[in-house]
């Protein structure tokens, strides 16, 4: 398999052709924060939390959706990047109603972890506080749009791995909402198989299991996607 060499944080790293900067960096021990990335899913580049600097590029690029190239010089931790990441997470927190104390994912939430890691103890922006709504019409699961960060992991896992494509996104910008089929209650969906992968993929408490009100794990879909590829 053709290999190439690049520099990440002053360290020489070997990568496969076609591999993302993110996965090469992780292997070399540079921990780039991510939110919308989930092993096994096609990168969306939606959250921009994994932005990195590449020498010669005018702007930071998302590490999850940028391929490693021969001779690239990547920096993953600069002041500019930290400031950008902080702003992104603050904007995410201001966009919906993230009340950790009453959330099923408290202390297991990737958004909460990231905010803690970036030392966010306040938000500079005005909270929008939308009445985003909750849908608990499904027999086993619920979706609380107030906690959704629109990372589209649920959309991608449902499309790419389960193959049902029950979820999609309605509208655009801050008014976007995750929708089920024709923007109908989850419980009335004709395409949902009730597999629960979206719940497993959700980084926050937006998708939750109804009878497990206090804890929920988030798992990578890497194994599942490998299994699916091998069956094709």
């Amino acid at each position, binding site marked *: 398999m053709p290999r190439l060499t690049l520099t990440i944080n002053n360290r020489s790293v070997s990568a496969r052709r076609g591999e993302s900067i993110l996965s090469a960096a992780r292997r070399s021990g540079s921990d780039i924060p991510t939110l919308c990335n989930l092993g096994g899913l096609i990168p969306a580049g939606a959250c921009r939390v994994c932005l990195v600097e590449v020498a010669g590029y005018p702007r930071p690029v998302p590490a999850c959706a940028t391929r490693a190239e021969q001779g690239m010089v990547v920096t993953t931790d600069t002041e500019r990047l930290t400031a950008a990441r902080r702003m992104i997470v603050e904007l995410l927190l201001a966009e919906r109603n993230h009340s950790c104390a009453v959330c099923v994912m408290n202390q297991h939430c990737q958004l909460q972890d990231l905010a803690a890691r970036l030392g966010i103890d306040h938000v500079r922006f005005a909270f929008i506080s939308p009445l985003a709504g909750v849908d608990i019409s499904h027999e086993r699961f619920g979706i609380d749009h107030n906690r959704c960060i629109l990372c589209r992991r649920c959309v991608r896992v449902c499309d790419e791995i389960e193959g049902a494509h029950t979820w*999609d996104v*309605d*509208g655009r910008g801050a008014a976007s909402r995750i*929708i089920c*089929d*024709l923007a*109908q209650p989850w419980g009335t969906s004709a395409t949902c198989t009730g597999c629960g992968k979206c719940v497993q993929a959700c980084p926050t408490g937006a998708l939750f299991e109804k009878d497990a009100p206090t804890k929920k794990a988030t798992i990578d879909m890497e194994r599942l996607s490998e299994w699916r590829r091998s069956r094709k």
Partner: protein
Amino acid sequence: MNVHDSHRADDRHRALERVMQQHRLRPDSLIEILHAAQRQFGWLDRDVLGLIAARLRLPPSLVYGVASFYHAFRLEPPGRHRCTVCTGTSCHLKGGSRLLQQLEQHFGIACGATAPDGSLTLENVRCLGACGLAPLIVIDDEACPHASFGPVVERLTASLDGEDTSP
């Protein structure tokens, strides 16, 4: 629904089916087909979106997502009268956006919304390509060049009142 209406609905469905067949039910022709459906029905209700999804073998959520992403598609029935305010650069500088705000307040409808009684839809558009006529307003496909608040309200009120007497 009387017989006449149901015949017309059948015609519309037939026309939509014809367009879908012309595109050989290809999933990548979704946007053209949504345009054709909107031309037939005036707006896209969920039944039509579901029908298109089924015929093109696309997930319903994807069809709804595409239709809701583009401002060209309406997912709510339009009002009987339409008032479109241009808020492109020229019209904005000439007070188009302020005019839109005044109209929103006067009729109590947000931009893009329809009055609860279905009489009027207020919407904006980014440039109609007639910047010399700024600020431009279009009421029921009729242009009102160099529009100002007073005459526009008068014109709209007249058409809204007019519909009470018409059969």
